[in-house]
């Protein structure tokens, strides 16, 4: 259960203030699958970063599983994060670790026993089609392969909530579809999934809830199955 109440995020840069999100109110139930759409710079990534506490909101409160994360004690933050799996827009793989180690690290953090890790890591890397590239460091992988490692890392420790920031931006349509189906399958066993994407044809196919952000505000939200809105299809066709 995710709750945004009157959330505003203002970035302060050297020269100006930048309102990335303004008065966001949103409720996501456990087990939902939500697409987040929006123009470049609309505030989608900021929206996700607030859930992970990578950024702190300027105003309002974010509640996850009944826990007000905006006022969380510093040393409780890691435990909160472990309940989530995040695919970052810029991947954020650790450059000195192989694909295997990157995924294993996220599991290690949650004190999963070694035996289980050794079984699970090849499995999830296999799921994203990288079973044969586990021992490569990120630099030795193609863009799409790195992105899939990031996806595998987000899944590996079986989190209750998966947050993915354009997880298919560097992947071909065929494989994007597969990845989205993977997320959908995970969702079907009760995991909440929030996906930012620009791939509108995928959104079309997957008939899920769509939240559209524009200039820092939620301009449309379909709790019902996906309906074509004016914006959402503007560039897709």
């Amino acid at each position, binding site marked *: 259960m995710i709750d945004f109440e009157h959330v505003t995020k203002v970035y302060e840069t050297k020269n100006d203030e930048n309102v990335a999100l303004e008065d966001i109110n949103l409720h996501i139930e456990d087990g939902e699958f939500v697409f987040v759409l929006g123009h470049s710079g609309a505030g989608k990534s900021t929206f996700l970063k607030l859930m992970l506490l990578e950024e702190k909101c300027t105003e309002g409160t974010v509640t996850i599983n009944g826990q007000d994360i905006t006022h969380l004690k510093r040393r409780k933050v890691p435990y909160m994060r472990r309940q989530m799996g995040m695919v970052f827009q810029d991947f954020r*793989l650790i450059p000195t670790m192989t694909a295997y180690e990157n995924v294993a690290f996220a599991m290690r953090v949650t004190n999963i026993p070694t035996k289980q890790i050794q079984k699970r890591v090849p499995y999830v890397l296999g799921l994203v089609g990288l079973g044969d590239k586990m021992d490569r460091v990120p630099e030795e992988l193609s863009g799409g392969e790195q992105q899939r490692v990031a996806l595998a890392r987000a899944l590996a420790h079986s989190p209750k909530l998966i947050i993915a920031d354009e997880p298919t931006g560097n992947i071909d349509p065929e494989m994007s579809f597969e990845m989205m189906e993977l997320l959908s399958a995970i969702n079907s066993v009760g995991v909440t999934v929030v996906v930012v994407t620009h791939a509108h044809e995928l959104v079309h196919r997957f008939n899920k809830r769509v939240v559209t952000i524009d200039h820092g505000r939620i301009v449309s939200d379909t709790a019902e199955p996906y309906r074509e809105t004016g914006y959402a299809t503007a560039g897709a066709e």
Partner: protein
Amino acid sequence: MHFSSFTYLVRQGLHSLRANKMMTFASMGVLTVCMVLIGVAFLLGVNIDAMVAYMGEQNETVVYLASDLSEEQIAAADAAIRAMPEVVSVTYVSPAEVLQFYSDKLVDSVNLMKAFENDNPFEANYRVVLRDVSQMAAVSEKLRQVEGVTKVLAPLELSNTFVSIQRVVNIACYGLVAVLAIVSMVVVSNTIRITVFARRKEIGIMKLVGATNGFIRFPFFVEGVTSGLIAAAVASGAVCGGYYLVTLWYTENPTTISRLFGGSLVPLQSVWYYVVLGFVALGFVLCGIGTATSIRKHLDV
């Protein structure tokens, strides 16, 4: 912490030591050089100290006995002086020897020997060497109390000068070691700060994936300690090996000055453990704790 986590984190630390080869190497180089510098300063200090101490051992207090003592009285005084724990050696000098000494000294000017041939005016005396020059004032007072002693000529001014020279040398040498240690700390901790800074993104990622601060810090600590210990090993090898060669050379090539200071350096056997232990401690403290603390500010993610 689970045991499997522990071994994982240790392996993690060792792994990133290899993965960041260039950085490890460069910062280990800095540390090694600092250690070698400290080691050399320390050995220099130890030797200068030993030399000064050697010179201190050349002290001589002259004790005159009354000329009208009986043989028993002389024996008693003799025994009393020799019994003092502060005294290293006592030499009896007869009046004839004193005369000989001065006439040798003035051989170019006058013939003292001839002048005093039959009537030696010099008195017999004891040349007393003290273990510790700084006790000279106290000991000469004690000597004065011995029955039969008429006069004690202690080179007190010399001993004072000597003691303050010793203090200066001591302060200078160990001060130098301390200063170099502090300098090393600044240099090494700055170096570590740079290497950690260069890896701040990595640290940020770990945090975002849900790692606790301890979980991130521990491998860095292991990495730091390991490179610190490697640096200590290299520096120990270099310093001890080098010092051994220097001692050999020094003994085999005596010079006027080196003879003045006893002719040999402090042997490696009696100092190597200070060097090694110091380096290990330094490597452990500087690198281990330095690394662990300098990542702190990057942990606020």
